[in-house]
């Protein structure tokens, strides 16, 4: 009970700190501007206007969430260490696991507020432009939130032991690997079936693709834009299983981050 209270206190302070971050405001304003610009894109595009507005805005949500997770998330732990505020904080009866988990939930709350703000703007915009606002779009936004939950955990993991720049690069690497791993595996298997590669290289590439697919979180699962903007139904229990998948990865990454962080010396 005491631990949960400590997590809530640290999360609240993290939230309070993050919403004062100028980088956050830049990202949020850019996201709002791009969301509004999607109306213009819809008018210019040769595609269906509603489709362009919906898919562009969902992409903006995903991208801005990613930028917040990386640029605000990584600096959160690094700032505590560099400004030495971590010394006073960790001398209180709170464990380093509590610190990491508190930071995580603080940033998750920032991303949740950001996505909520964009969702409100999104729906107002869809109503005003008669672009068929549907409840199914919320499913896509929820899955973007799940994806960001995993990305924040990745960012915290790397920032628990490496520098800001390296953490950002590693997190971006995991993000892209997570989005492309499925495609890579399919391509390699397709090439193998078509006999485009020699036996030895086929086996090697296939093994590498299988390892990448297994190790990196499958973030491609959280991109359901094409389903929802075309009004297609998601498979049964898709949300449930992918929520479980995200929770599993978040737990794993936070456990590793806490372990690393517990071994650190604070000078």
């Amino acid at each position, binding site marked *: 009970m005491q631990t949960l209270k400590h997590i809530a206190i640290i999360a609240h302070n993290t939230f309070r700190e993050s919403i004062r971050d100028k980088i956050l405001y830049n990202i949020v304003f850019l996201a709002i501007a791009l969301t509004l610009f999607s109306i213009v894109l819809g008018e210019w595009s040769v595609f269906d206007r509603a489709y362009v507005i919906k898919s562009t805005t969902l992409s903006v949500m995903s991208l801005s969430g990613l930028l917040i997770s990386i640029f605000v998330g990584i600096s959160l732990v690094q700032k505590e260490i560099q400004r030495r505020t971590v010394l006073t904080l960790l*001398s209180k009866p709170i464990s380093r696991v509590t610190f990491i988990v508190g930071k995580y939930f603080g940033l998750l709350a920032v991303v949740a507020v950001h996505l909520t703000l964009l969702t409100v703007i999104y729906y107002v915009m869809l109503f005003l432009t008669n672009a068929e606002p549907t409840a199914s779009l919320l499913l896509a936004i929820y899955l973007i939130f799940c994806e960001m939950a995993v990305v924040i955990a990745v960012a915290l993991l790397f920032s628990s032991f490496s520098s800001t720049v390296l953490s950002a690069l590693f997190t971006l690497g995991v993000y892209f690997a997570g989005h492309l791993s499925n495609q890579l595996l399919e391509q390699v298997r397709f090439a193998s079936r078509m006999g485009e590669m020699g036996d030895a290289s086929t086996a090697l590439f296939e093994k590498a693709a299988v390892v990448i697919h297994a190790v990196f979180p499958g973030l491609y699962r959280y991109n359901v834009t094409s389903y929802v903007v075309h009004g297609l139904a998601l498979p049964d229990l898709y949300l449930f299983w992918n929520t479980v998948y995200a929770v599993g990865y978040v737990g794993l990454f936070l456990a590793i981050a806490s372990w690393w962080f517990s071994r650190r010396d604070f000078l």
Partner: protein
Amino acid sequence: MGDLMIQIEHLHKTYRSGFLMKPKPALKDVSFSVEPGQVYGFIGPNGAGKSTTIKVLTGLLNFDSGKVLVNGISPRDVKSRRFIGYSPEQPYFYDYLTGRELLRFYGTLVGLDGAELDKRIAWALDLLHANKDWIDRRLRSYSKGMMQRVGIAQAILGKPKLLILDEPMSGLDPMGRRDVREAIQQLNRDGVTIFYSSHLLSDVESISHKVAMIVDGKIVREGTVDEITESCGVEYHVRTRKAILESDLPQGVSLTGHPEEFVCEDDSARDRLLAFCLANGIAVEKMDHKRPSLEDILTEEIARADA
């Protein structure tokens, strides 16, 4: 031994830096203990290992080997920090908060809330003679002295059994130093054990029950101020009514720069000088004894370590 507030035995800590993880020993076989109710001063030059020892005690640094217990609990165990209040050297805080918001934040982390927390904040500020006007200003506008007081205030909010202060008087003006010194003494009278490091040796001499001196990662002296200074012997200053040639001076006696004033390095040198004066009919006008200060001893120990 179970009653000790701090128990450190054969503590070793090595930092590793650079690509090749080059080792640099910071603490070499450090042992000392602090009893409940003591004000314990920890002195030494910069880089001697004071802050390293303090950070080991507060669980901020891991250590290589040895035994470290705080109130009978290892600092690796988060429970040990329930008894501790700690203020780091040059404390840094979240500068977007006001002093009061910061104290509320740390107060909630030690289990305080509501009216009790407000009461404790008021008590801590009173104890440190902190000006109530600036406590509601943002920390980014604070001077070093204000920051130091807020640092100590957050450390004492939870009424800890053990208060660990790293250079609590650095950055303070003389009034601020007096306020902090008085606060330390008051807290000690209320039963709080105080372990603190300082460069201000006159303050250490005046308020510490015991002192440990650390040089180059090793404890070189430990005891009460009297024990430490007496262990270094007493120096005698003698003035005669007639000059003595330097070549005639007995062993262990030297001139101070004046032909009628001499320094005897110990009791036997003094006895030899007095016997010489008696034998030669030289009257002794004045004789003082002087114990070395902590500063003298520390300077001597640093020179010895450098040699």
